Each structure stands twice: as structure tokens, then as C-alpha cells.
């Protein structure tokens, strides 16, 4: 799934459905783990996995080496967090790493766009005195900053996917845009059944596959 498809899917269909669809595009029911073996996927996607990304290549999966780390709650269902502790196999097929990261950025941007839609609706419903919050000058400015951030990310994700190094920065930029919007939602963005839970899951996805961008083992 390319980044723009993932973005559109996530904006309308949500996180779990899009991540499931992204996973379905990978051959052989593969477990796509990040550089340290971490991975966050819908529960059904974990079943029957026969192969695994470890580092840059694809190898046979040792089921015993799949460690369960916990569950990431989202409003449209829980995701499973696991860590693969198996030894990387001999060099095999290269993992489609940049494509996955680009699609993941598209997914996260789509969620961020849905968050913007929800934030604008929320601020349109809330009033201070006779004026909807969304028409307050400071709020207008904050929304403009967030949407500008999103548009910049979208432009960079359109067409040829950016190199992996730039993708790491894009993921960080998506987190920034999300946090800008969450600040406009007040406590309603902090509840476990609200839009803030999706942002938390989105950040965890980025962290599993591309976190610690300046880190070297």
C-alpha cells in the first residue's frame, strides 16, 4: 500500500483497518519488526506468521522468540505489541523497509487529518460567550499552524517516497502536528476513548519501527 492510499484509508477508515490492510499487502503473512524487533499490529495479523523482518532482511520466524509486550488500546480495538528476540537469519530477501515506513507515515498522517477534522468540529461546537471557539483568533492561528504542518508532510509523501532518513523526520513532524491539535482539545484529548488514544497508538507505531532516530546500537 502506498503512502497516499494509507493516508486516505486511515482518515476515513481508522487505524486498525488501515494497518490490517497494510499488513495484508506483505507476502507470506510476515511479521514486520523494527530494528530492535518491536512491532505493533492488530491481533489477527500475528497469527500464523511464518517469516519475520529482522533488521534489513526477511528470515524464517521462530515462534518461541516472539515475546508479548502488551496491548495498545485504541477506540476501534486493541493492537498487540510484541518483540521478536530471534537471531537474524543469514542474509535473505531485503525487507521492503522504506515502503513500509512511507505507508506508515501515510497512515499516521491520515489519522492526523482525521484528528484535525474532529478538532475543528469540537471547536465549532464549543463557545466562549457568543463566539464559537473556532472563530477565536488565537485558535484560528493554532489550526493554521497545524494544517500547514500536515500539508508540508503530505507534499513530501506524495509521488516518490522520501529516503528512510527523511521519513524519520516526517514521523517526528506528524507527532508534532498531532500534539498541536491535542492542545486544542483540552482534557477531551486525554481520555482513553477519545481522539488522544489514537494519537498515543500512532506515536507507538512510529516508535516501534523508527523511534530513536539518532540512536546507534
Amino acid at each position, binding site marked *: 500500500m502506498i503512502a497516499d492510499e494509507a493516508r486516505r484509508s486511515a482518515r476515513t477508515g481508522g487505524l486498525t483497518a488501515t494497518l490490517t490492510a497494510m499488513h495484508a499487502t506483505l507476502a507470506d503473512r510476515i511479521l514486520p519488526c523494527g530494528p530492535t524487533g518491536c512491532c505493533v499490529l492488530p491481533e489477527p495479523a500475528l497469527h500464523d506468521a511464518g517469516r519475520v523482518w529482522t533488521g534489513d532482511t526477511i528470515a524464517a520466524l521462530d515462534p518461541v522468540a516472539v515475546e508479548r509486550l502488551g496491548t495498545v488500546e485504541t477506540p476501534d480495538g486493541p493492537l498487540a505489541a510484541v518483540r521478536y528476540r530471534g537471531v537474524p537469519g543469514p542474509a535473505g530477501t531485503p525487507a521492503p523497509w522504506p515502503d513500509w515506513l512511507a505507508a506508515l507515515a501515510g497512515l499516521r498522517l491520515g489519522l492526523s487529518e482525521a484528528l484535525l477534522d474532529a478538532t475543528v468540529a469540537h471547536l465549532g461546537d464549543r463557545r466562549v460567550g457568543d463566539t464559537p471557539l473556532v472563530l477565536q483568533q488565537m485558535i484560528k492561528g493554532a489550526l493554521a499552524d497545524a494544517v500547514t504542518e500536515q500539508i508540508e508532510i503530505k507534499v513530501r509523501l506524495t509521488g516518490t517516497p522520501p529516503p528512510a532518513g527523511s521519513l524519520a523526520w516526517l514521523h517526528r513532524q506528524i507527532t508534532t502536528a498531532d500534539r498541536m491539535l491535542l492542545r*486544542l482539545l483540552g482534557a477531551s484529548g486525554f481520555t482513553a476513548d477519545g481522539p488522544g488514544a489514537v494519537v498515543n497508538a500512532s506515536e507507538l507505531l512510529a516508535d516501534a519501527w523508527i523511534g530513536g532516530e539518532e540512536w546507534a546500537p
Partner: protein
Amino acid sequence: MIELDDRLGAARAHARDWARDLRSTALELDRDPDTVYRCLDNPAVRHLSTMLIPAPWLPERTLIGGYRFDGMTAMERVVFAEEIAAGDAGMMLASPGASLSGVLVDLLADQEQKEWFYGRLLAAPTWTFFALTEPDHGSDAAAMGTRLDPDGEGGLLLRGAKRYIGNGARAQVGVVFARDRPGPLGATAVLVETGAPGFKAEPIPTIGLRGAQLSAINLDGVPVPEGRVLGRHLSPTRRGVWSGVQMFNRLRPGVAAIALGIARSAHDYVTEQRGSLSKADRLRWERTGRRIDGVRQLIWRAAAIVDAQPANGHLASAAKARAARLAEEVTLEALEYFGPGARLTQPMLDKLIRDARGVEFMEGTGNIQRLNTFQGLVQGKLDRD
């Protein structure tokens, strides 16, 4: 640069020791907010449970480093708050005690009300709540929908709903803001017992700061004796908006200090867990440490100003906005010192990231604080000489 005197220095050192214990229960409290009931003997929790009870009601308070502390000044509160929050901000907010209500009681209650309120707190560990925010109006007091009406028999009845109220579901007593007449001065605060008929509170699950157990409160004709109306001996002006402004000014530096504690905790975590940093990483992280030190100075200055002039909370707003942003930035930056998947494999860091998000909306979001700061600028109250 502000330096602490011996008394506050002793407070800081002791609170820092307490905070180490809090780390051992932080993740447990995050999973299960009821963990606080098993931590009532923790020195930090015990201290919080008697903070904001003035000396006349508790003259034989335990000595800490040779001094007594009652939390009646913002400066004292920020010093403790940073250290305790650096241990676990969740426990800081989960603890029993007068908390936010205590500041309002100190400001508005008459002698009889104080005896009743402090008497409750001294008899046993008692949780309190502070209910201003509403589901449809946020903390916009002018639009508040909760009503306080005469019951026809000399008492009063509360009707309405409150949301995002810390400790609402576990408290025994607290303060509810309601409207008793139209107009901007028509807001009144009353003391309420959670066992009263018509009072119902349920926890709202949150992303972080789960110890605070934010709650939704429903008030369905809760009876309130006239003697529980705070500030009944004061003019409507002084017990309404005036008291609210004073109270939030006094509280805000403490909230800023909680954010600062979370940021420092993340900073300490990297230092402790990633011992062998490259020179470049170490220099970068030291710069972050200096940012934390700078915000601490801002908070101390804001607290000192609020203590000297309670009506001047503009710098407190600037400090709160700055500290809340710092907590988000530093906790996210901390991730960069670990490999991918750190949020899954380093649960304490994950918790700090989630907790940091929660401070943004406590005592007003960043935009509200920016507006307050702007007011301070145009009114010439920011001490820019």
C-alpha cells in the same frame, strides 16, 4: 538567579529522597489507581495529606529537616511538587489531602467552615475534589450550567454535571462551583460531601496521569446546607470571580512544577539508563538539562510573585505554559536516546510521555495561559525593567 534558603533546601532534599520510593509504585499506580490506598504510609503521601492545613489546626506537624511545612505558600508548594512529581506525578495527584480545595478554603472559608473541613482531613486520610469544569462549557465559569437553588426549606440544592474532576470518584468531600444568580458574579463555591443524596461520580479512563482518577460527577438535587456556602461572610464580588482568579494564580506555579518534575524525571531516566552516551549526545542532553534549570527559575520567580501579590498571576501563566511544553518536548526527546520500540520496552519512559500530555490542560491550556501572559504585558505587570 534564585537560590533556595536553608528551609526550602531542606524541603527539596527530603522530597527528593521520598520520590525514589514513589518510582517503585509508579507503574503499578498507572495500571491500578487503587494502589494509592496501599501507599498511605509513604512519607510523600503522608506529607501531601496534611499540606494546606494551616498551623493553627495542626501545630504539632512533623518536622522535616528541622522545619515545619504546611504548604501555605506557592514557593513551598513548587519545591515539593517538582520533587514528588519527579518521583511520580500520578501519586502526587492521587494522594489524599486538601489539594486544590484547600487553597479555596484558605481563601474563602469562615472559621466554622475551616474547622469542619480541616477536622475531616485531620481525622483520617481524606481525598478531596475540586469541581469547576463542565461537560459542555469546560472551565468557562461565565457559561457554567450547574445551579445552586433554594430548596424552599432554608437549604440549597445542587443540580448539574462536572467533568475531568481529579479524585472525584474516591473523594469524601470537595468543592463544587455553581451558579446561584445570573451575571458574571453569579458563581458560588460550596462544600459538598460525596455521600450526599444525588451525588454520583465515576472515573474517566485517561491516557496518562491515571493516579489522578479524573471523574465525571453528576449532581441530581444534592442538598447543601447554607452553612456550606464558601465566602458567605464576604460580598458576592469577593466570593465569586475575584476568589477564582486569586486561587488559580496561587495554584498555577504548582502545576508548572508538576510538569517540570515530569521533564526532570525523563532527563534523569536517560542519564541513569543510558550511561555511555557519545560526546555529542551528552552535550545535547546537558543542553536539555539547562533548559530544565531555566524553567525551574521561571517557576520559582512566578511562585515568589504570587506569594507577594496574589492578584498578579501573569508570570505564573507564562511559567505554566512553558513548563507544560517543556514536559512534552523533553519526554519525546528522551526517546531518541534509546532504540526503536523504546515506548514498548521502557515502560517508565512510556508513562512519562503519557503523563506529560496531561499537564497541558490542568489549570488552563496553553492558549489560556498565553492570553493571561498577554494581559500581564499590556497591563505592565510582567516586571520587565
